[in-house]
């Protein structure tokens, strides 16, 4: 007889292993909570208003360093008539990062990515009420500079003329109150390769194209920059670096074990190795490369890696439930084809998310200012893909719940006849049931912890305003905890569901023992001695 390690492991050994894994889990959580800072931080940068004395000159405007421009108070111009061309001369300048404590800060490549969001302070004037939705045209230019470059050596990174819609409402219609305007996503950089960045923004007015005519009394323009924290990246990458060899090691061990068997690997074993491969892809610490190379595709790559991992995990659960169905079906069960209906739900979901991601982050590789959400068609398209993914997720969970429900039904049916079986067969069935229940328990626990952690995180996010001196950095702890958890989960799966060879010496014994049964079940097709136990028992199950 051969099964997997989990059913042959003694209770003591199993509990030691589980305890070790739990310890690793706690460690992951604490590393995130105590060592790592928050995953990302946001900075409000107030735009400096510079004046372009020429006509739309290509030069860069910057606020610090030699040759910097001076701030112009827009309100000084408020009451002067016929300053029409002024609007086309004002350049909003954001030179980031902003210095602190008299130190000129520079971005580190550890900070990985940068998101820019604009916010407008538009003052209310009864004579100049803004519509609740205004289309604004933004002429944005992003440049960069590195340490050691002269102050004016800004090099272009990207530029675009973008339209965005600005939703502004005001509850208290009083002069000089600000509208409550929606935030305007501006750009997303997948790599933070350079030291300093400079954003020049114009809001050109063109009466023929009705460009920016409806914009109200703009007092300030704010840029909110969000970047990943270097400390978090370091902790995250170290975590990956630690997990990577472990998972690769256990995969090699697992595959060796499978190949030591005389039979070809079973479907579940393929699935496990696929899952391990997806996780290895996720674990590969590619972030080290960003320290040396400009890799703007990291955001997209990260999304794709996550997508592959999720699809592998979801497919694995489906196949696992299917393989433990314990119903009569011939050898077909060993093929992925059987599950095409179920797997297509995963496929469609992941594919639609992939297409959506390509449309958003893929195009952002060409133009960092691009966003699919700004046009109505784009929004509808994006929503279509997301809804499609949502539907597939729903269908998937229906399938999965149905399969699990069936497995449980079969289990309870088997339970009732178990006492009447011969001891060997009873052991086998108990093994199948045990394996299934063990994984169910572990999976449910992991999923529940992820969900609970996520909800707690959302609640804590709301409390962020009042509670700043929290000792545990919850968001980071959640991320490292969940990441560690799925790594440990898959490590445990590869470890515990590998074919056990401890029992090989017993095998002959078991064969001799089951002679009596073979007589009983003479109609059974003679099976190769080493089929995946589950498949063989499934067949036997059908006969009961």
């Amino acid at each position, binding site marked *: 007889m051969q099964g997997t390690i989990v059913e042959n492991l003694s209770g003591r050994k199993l509990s030691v292993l589980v305890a070790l894994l739990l310890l690793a889990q706690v460690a992951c959580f604490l590393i995130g909570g105590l060592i790592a800072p928050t995953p*990302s931080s*946001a900075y409000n940068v107030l735009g400096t208003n510079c004046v372009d004395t020429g006509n739309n000159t290509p030069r860069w405007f910057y606020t610090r360093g030699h040759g910097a421009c001076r701030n112009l108070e827009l309100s000084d111009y408020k009451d002067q008539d016929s300053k029409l061309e002024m609007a086309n001369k004002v350049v909003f300048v954001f030179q980031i990062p902003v210095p602190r404590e008299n130190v000129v*800060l520079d971005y580190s490549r550890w900070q990985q990515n940068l998101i820019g969001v604009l916010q407008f302070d538009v003052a209310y004037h009864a004579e100049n009420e803004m519509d609740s939705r205004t289309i604004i045209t933004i002429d944005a230019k992003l440049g960069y500079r590195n340490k050691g470059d002269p102050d004016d050596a800004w090099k272009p990174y990207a530029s675009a003329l973008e339209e965005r819609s600005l939703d502004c409402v005001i509850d208290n219609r009083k002069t000089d109150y600000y509208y409550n305007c929606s935030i305007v996503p501006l750009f997303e950089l997948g790599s933070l390769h350079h030291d300093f960045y400079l954003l020049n923004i114009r809001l050109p007015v063109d009466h023929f194209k009705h460009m920016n005519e409806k914009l109200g009394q*703009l*007092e300030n323009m704010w840029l909110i920059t969000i970047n990943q924290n270097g400390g978090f990246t370091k902790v995250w990458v170290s975590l990956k670096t630690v997990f990577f060899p472990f998972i690769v090691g256990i995969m090699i061990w697992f595959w060796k074990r499978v190949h030591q068997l005389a039979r070809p690997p079973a479907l579940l074993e393929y699935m496990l190795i696929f899952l391990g491969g997806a996780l290895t892809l996720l674990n590969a610490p590619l972030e080290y490369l960003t320290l040396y190379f400009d890799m703007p595709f990291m955001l997209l790559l990260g999304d794709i890696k996550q997508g592959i991992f999720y699809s592998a995990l979801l497919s694995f659960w489906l196949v696992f439930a299917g393989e433990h169905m314990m119903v009569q079906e011939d050898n077909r069960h060993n093929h992925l084809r059987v599950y095409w209906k179920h797997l297509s739900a995963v496929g469609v979901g992941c594919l639609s998310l992939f297409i959506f991601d390509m449309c958003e982050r893929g195009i952002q590789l060409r133009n960092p200012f691009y966003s699919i959400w700004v046009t109505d068609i784009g929004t509808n398209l994006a929503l279509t893909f997301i809804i499609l993914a949502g539907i597939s997720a729903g269908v998937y969970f229906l399938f999965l719940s149905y399969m699990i429900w069936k497995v449980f039904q079969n289990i309870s049916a088997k339970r009732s006849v178990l006492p009447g079986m011969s001891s060997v067969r009873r052991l086998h069935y108990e093994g199948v049931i045990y394996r299934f229940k063990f994984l169910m328990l572990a999976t449910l626990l992991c999923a529940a912890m992820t969900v609970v952690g996520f909800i707690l995180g959302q609640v804590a996010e709301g409390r962020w305003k009042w509670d700043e001196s929290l000792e545990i950095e919850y968001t980071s702890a959640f991320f490292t905890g969940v990441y560690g958890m799925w790594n440990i989960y898959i490590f445990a799966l590869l470890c515990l569901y590998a074919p056990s060879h401890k029992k090989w010496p017993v095998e002959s014994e078991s064969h001799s023992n089951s002679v009596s049964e073979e007589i009983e079940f003479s109609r059974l097709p003679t099976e190769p001695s080493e089929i995946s136990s589950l498949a063989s028992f499934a067949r036997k199950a059908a006969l009961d």
Partner: protein
Amino acid sequence: MGLHVPLPVLLLPLLPLLLGTSLGPGLGPPPASAANANWMYLGLVGVPPPLQQAAPALAGSGDGDGEGGLEVLVLEDPELAEARAVCGSLPGLVGAQTNVCMEHPSAIRPIAEGARRGILECQFQFRHERWNCSTNEREQSVFGYILERGSKETAFIYAVTSAGVAHAVTQACSGGELTDCGCDPGRADQRTTPQGWKWGGCSDNLEYGLQFSRRFVDAPERTKANSGDPKARKAYAVRARMNLHNNEAGRQVVSSLLRMHCRCHGVSGSCELKTCWRTLPAFSEVGDLLKRKYRQAVQITNPRGRRRMRRKSKNPRSGGNQSNRGGRGNKWKRSLSKGDLVHIHKSPDYCVTDPSRGIAGTSGRACNKTGSGAQSCDLLCCGRGYNTQVVKHVERCHCKFVWCCYVTCKTCETVMDRHTCK
């Protein structure tokens, strides 16, 4: 309580002590006023550009006096000299404030801007009231007697200027105008400077703005009264506590009006990862809320030997119709909250001109004949009646804006009655 002793008299002997603590130059007593010079004066006159400032200071011809040691210091350290050039001859600062200025010379401009914002907002909020927050440009105490009085108006001025400084400093930090804003003033572990920034980021600029306002604006109240007279010392302490409370209340209002915004940027832009930030309110919102607090200002008393302030048990002004121990009875038991404005004395009579106290009176003020609020002629003119003139009013109307700087308006002429108080 014998607090009606004019405070200026009490404080005058302290002036040399206050001013001479660390830096003498430029901090002579104000020339023409009995009231104390005040930092808010910066809001009226602004900060002269440092280069122009440096020249007269070196020449010893600034408006202050006692610049004796300056040239020696100039030789010591050019950076310090520059700071001294900016801070040395600023009017109205006490020693501790000059120290803050020396540490952060570039912060003085946002401070002046904050004071200006506060004063303008005060004038806007009180434009229809008997006291219209008028300032006196020639006086370094800006508000003169009103600031010394300890009334509701004093409370408002303190709160609004303190809020103004917090607001302006925060903005200056965000704009990069102020380069020495703290990276992480809130946290206990000092992971500041660039490496710290790269590790875990910096805190909100607002924290710095509030702390800076606390350091700078509160500084005059934190100087100990060294006068020998215990009664005077106590009066000074009570007033200092009132001012501190109101300063804090102003800052409290700023932080209570912050708006929070969030952005999701997890996998594929999902809300798995969400980053939030806070944005400053328009200063007029701060002014409005403070005005509301002004109307509900609490008169306090400081019983002997108690460190905590209390509501005064008899409050004839605001409590006149509420103190009937009826439904509102428990309102008195409510303890003083951090955001309340507090005052010690009743407001003076703003109706009559009293030059010795710097009260302009309301005669000559425009009023509203038909209205019923504070602007109505009945209230504003204090029953003295009003004059009516027929004036042709020319104003811009039906304006059309294009953002930034373009306005087209029609000119509208209206003939209207203008009422002014007698």
